């Protein structure tokens, strides 16, 4: 690795002056994530990661994601809510001689240090790739030989092992009992039409028929909606939570 300051300088080149003035001019993808933004804020304020003034940093984070238009992004909101929770935890009173007290910031500090380290490696990788890209490989490549390619190695055992892997990887293999019993909207329609021929008005339970199954229930509902759409009947509910009333709509008057 080169000097320890180098990654920080490179990271700052990624972002623009955040918090330096009133107006933020920041590219949306300037930050690789909420931890990146948080690290940036800490650097701006020259705050030690190990001793974060949570209340202030939480406020700044919320302020920043609002200005950056990141307050819609789930990842950033998740971090924001963690910070707010930490802020509340830090406000809880504690005795000074309380040795069992666990710093609620410990997990955040661990994550920040871990992320900062990954960032450092990422910058190293970026430099290595940059250096490698200064060297060009052969541009012209001769066409592949006319000989047939070497035979592919594949055997049945391998294939079966792959099947086992796939099956093992399918999450929660819950077996559904599949019953080939589609909705029967036609019969429900016929039943309702028949009832409405006899009577001007029927109740929802009558329309369902005796001992309805869930399929009957869904079929009847769809039939009712379809008939109502076609203007053949009217569905009403006299009072909240009262049973539905299905009334015949006079087609002849409409026509």
């Amino acid at each position, binding site marked *: 690795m080169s000097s320890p300051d180098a990654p920080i300088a490179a990271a700052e080149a990624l972002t623009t002056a955040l918090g330096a003035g009133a107006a933020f001019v920041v590219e949306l993808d300037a930050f690789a994530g909420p931890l990146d933004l948080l690290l940036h804020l800490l650097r701006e304020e020259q705050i030690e990661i190990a001793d974060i003034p949570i209340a202030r940093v939480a406020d700044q984070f919320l302020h920043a994601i609002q200005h950056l238009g990141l307050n819609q992004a789930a990842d950033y909101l998740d971090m924001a809510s963690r910070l707010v929770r930490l802020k509340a935890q830090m406000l809880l009173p504690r005795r000074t001689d309380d040795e069992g007290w666990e710093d609620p910031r410990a997990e955040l500090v661990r994550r920040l240090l871990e992320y900062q380290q990954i960032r450092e490696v990422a910058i190293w990788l970026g430099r290595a790739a940059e250096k490698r890209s200064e060297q*060009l*490989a*052969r*541009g*012209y*490549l*001769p066409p*592949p*030989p*006319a*000989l047939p*390619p*070497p*035979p*592919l*190695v*594949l*055997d*049945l055992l*391998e*294939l*079966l*092992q*792959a*099947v086992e*892997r*796939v*099956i093992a*990887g*399918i*999450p*929660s*293999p*819950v*077996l*559904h*009992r*599949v*019953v*080939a*019993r*589609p*909705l029967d909207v036609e019969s429900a329609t016929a039943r309702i039409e028949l009832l409405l021929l006899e009577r001007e008005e029927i109740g929802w339970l009558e329309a369902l028929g005796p001992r309805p*199954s*869930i*399929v009957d229930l*869904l079929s009847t509902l769809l039939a009712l909606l379809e008939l109502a759409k076609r203007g053949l009947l009217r569905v009403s509910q006299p009072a909240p939570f009262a049973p539905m009333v299905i009334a015949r709509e006079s087609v002849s008057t409409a026509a």
Partner: protein
Amino acid sequence: MSPLAQLLEAALFSAARPLTAEELATLEPDATLADVRAAVDQLREHYDFNQHGVELVELAGGFQVLTRPVHAAAIERAQFSVRTPKLTAAALETLAIIAYRQPVGRAEIEEIRGVSAGGVLRALQERGLIEVVGRSELLGRPLLYGTAASFLELLGLKDLSDLPRADELTIALQPHRPEQQGTDDAAAYVPAES
């Protein structure tokens, strides 16, 4: 070699096509066409005099560095362009699903494996192991895949019914979440009353 010859060598090496003397001259603002020609000659003579495995060839109105024909046979035998004759785990798993579930669409494969399948399907198609066998009736009429002839050849099978445990594995590879099936036949999946 002169600095210009070095630069020309690097350019000819990295270009995917022959470069003309005029093009080569754009590499170095101070170089004349005559300078370029002299440097090209120097490079050619160097390759010949030192018996390099490559030579400078003039073709299509330009210059190109090519391997000498005398080495072609040995290189072809070694076949460096083919990286590995083994399938990756992802390719094998996808192939297994297609073998037992064909004809099967990409969406169903992705549902079973839980990852996107585009690249793997392309690779398997290029290797001639699978092929498009039709289109689904579902929305968007997605392509359906099946195994190709060379799949059976590689495994030494007469036909697909020779695949071991076909009944058992075809059922086991059903996607388990009916609500994610194509919407058209969703009605067939109404759960049983219990």
